[in-house]
């Protein structure tokens, strides 16, 4: 078990739901924390009667949703400023980014929901949706659905595999990056097709 995960497990045992909320929140913001492992571990602790399962579902989902929406709002409001601050002025003012604003609205719901299951993909989709100023109600609805489904999935893994969860998690970790890559390609391909249509129309 890596040292970060050990620290995270200790935090969950010490601060329980507060720790779970904070980890879920910052992980959704793109900070590389083992949120999935934390949720699975919390579910194992719930299975042992140490934590409450319903509270884990509620608090974990709330943390994820709050993190996703915060990232989205930050990118929506300050995204271009951040790009300029990072020296990417050309990108911030490029037609490509302006087209994102027009195309992101039509993001397929399954892409946004599926991206919740992989931390890196979650961050990427949040950033693009924020930069593209996607309709906030639509984004929030899809994020809520995705995050609740994600929590149910990880809690189920924790409950079903109980004390074997670490083996299952390390097996799942191998495939996480592949799934992230697939979602990223899907986002790019979809956007490219729309871009092409917009360019033709222009």
């Amino acid at each position: 078990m890596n040292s970060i995960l050990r620290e995270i497990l200790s935090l969950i045992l010490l601060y329980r739901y507060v720790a779970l909320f904070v980890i879920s929140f910052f992980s959704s913001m793109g900070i590389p924390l083992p949120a999935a492992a934390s949720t699975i571990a919390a579910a194992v602790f719930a299975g042992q009667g140490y934590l409450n399962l319903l509270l884990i579902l509620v608090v974990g989902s709330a943390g994820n949703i709050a993190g996703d929406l915060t990232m989205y709002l930050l990118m929506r409001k300050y995204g271009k400023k951040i790009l300029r601050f990072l020296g990417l002025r050309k990108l911030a003012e490029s037609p490509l980014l302006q087209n994102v604003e027009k195309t992101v609205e039509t993001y397929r719901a399954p892409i946004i929901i599926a991206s919740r299951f992989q931390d890196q993909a979650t961050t990427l989709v949040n950033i693009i949706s924020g930069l593209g100023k996607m309709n906030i109600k639509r984004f929030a609805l899809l994020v809520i659905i995705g995050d609740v489904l994600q929590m149910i999935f990880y809690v189920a893994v924790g409950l079903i595999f109980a004390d074997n969860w670490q083996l299952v998690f390390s097996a799942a970790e191998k495939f996480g990056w592949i799934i992230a890559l697939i979602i990223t390609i899907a986002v790019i391909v979809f956007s490219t097709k729309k871009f092409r249509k917009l360019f033709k129309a222009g």
Partner: protein
Amino acid sequence: MADDHKKLLGATNWTALVIVLLLAILLAVAVWFGLDILNLYKNGAIAPAVSRLHRKPLSHITLTSDQIQGWMTFRYINHIFNLPSDYLAARLNISDSGYPNVTVDKYALDHNIDNMIFIQKVKDAVGSYQNGNSQ
């Protein structure tokens, strides 16, 4: 002939094609993951707790004292092994005000005790409580 070929290429829905391809890869990854889990199950490395789901707590009896680790808190250890809350404090001479809400690692670090030796002492204390109770 060449024109027909170009028309056919032009009419191809590339987005649909790529999405189908990605879904196929996703399916392959899912099957691969399933086989991986199946192998772990066949090797006896994992045993799903589905049959224990109706019980409360679900897996209370599955941990042994050998599985105690430094990241665990004393409160958690007390809970898992059904120990009286002051048992470990008395047995290990713990006078820390944070007990039982402190991890085994942190306690050993704060009191300059060798981590591995202290974890072993905790394991022994839990083991002897379990043996005493089972007799």
